[in-house]
């Protein structure tokens, strides 16, 4: 196994779980998410030179994963998943407290929700999100601020 493949395998171990969670949130199908994860890494293997030169390989992998997920969703159905999908996922014992927040996130416009997910779900930096979404860092900040203000409105009105 050469250096590039070893590097890719290391990234798979490090970034793979986060990417899988991100892909699950995107497509809502655990099996499809696993396939998309493998497709993401095969896509990365096809352009391994770019991966080795990338400033943030993690951001680059998220960008590939996002494209793979978008292509999958387009192929599967003509529209993006309904925002309410988030509200329907993974109810837990503590979900009463989080329910308004979950609903608020689900009701966010797609660009705001996606940016918020990449920041607080995948823990990407502002610059990495900008790279993944191919938008300026200023736009990332502005989207995050709008999203957080909406979620805050739901979170603080939640009876504690």
């Amino acid at each position, binding site marked *: 196994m050469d250096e590039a493949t070893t590097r890719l395998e290391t990234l798979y171990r490090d970034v793979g779980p986060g990417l899988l969670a991100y892909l699950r949130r995107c497509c809502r199908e655990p099996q499809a998410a696993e396939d998309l994860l493998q497709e993401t890494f095969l896509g990365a293997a096809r352009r391994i030179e770019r991966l080795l030169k990338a400033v943030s390989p993690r951001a680059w992998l998220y960008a590939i994963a996002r494209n793979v997920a978008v292509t999958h969703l387009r192929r599967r159905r003509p529209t993006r998943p309904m925002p309410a999908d988030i509200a329907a996922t993974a109810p837990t014992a503590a979900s009463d407290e989080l329910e308004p927040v979950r609903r608020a996130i689900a009701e966010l416009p797609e660009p705001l929700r996606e940016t918020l997910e990449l920041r607080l779900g995948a823990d990407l930096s*502002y610059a990495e999100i900008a790279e993944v979404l191919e938008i300026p860092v200023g736009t990332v900040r502005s989207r995050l601020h709008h999203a957080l203000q909406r979620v805050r409105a739901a979170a603080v009105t939640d009876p504690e």
Partner: protein
Amino acid sequence: METEILKRLLMDRALGGLSPDVEALLAAYLERDAAPAARGREFELAANRTRQVLRQAQPMTLPPFPAARVQALDRGRRRLILLRNVAGIAAALVLGVGLGAGLDQRLAAHRTTSASALSPPVLVVARTGAEATDSAGFWSAQRLYEQACDTKGTHAAQLIWDSPVKAPRLGGKS
């Protein structure tokens, strides 16, 4: 501090987007002002709950790394690079040979043109009287002419001597 700027800073802090220096400065500022500090806590609460929602534990097993497929792709990529290099070298060779041949043809054509344009120097000797022959001496052109005429048994108008390594020959009739 301006309210709008403070609000943006509070949100960035809640989102974890502030540098440690700015965060320390903001914390120092908030210690003196309770109202923005309370608003900051609200943003923190919202961010934490969002984090909780987005990272809610779901049973997840990472599928095995597709090593075989990645290696197959890698082999294909290497083969493609090799083919590309060979094709490049072949193209360079074809181009080089083609240019060389073209250049050679042009040079040959140029050489022919030059050769016909630059005809060899011709020594033309006119027939003169016998007295001149006598005075010219053994190495004179006139003597050579006479000798050539005697050999051929005729009198030509010209003696052509176009090369120092060839014997002179007789030219057109007068």
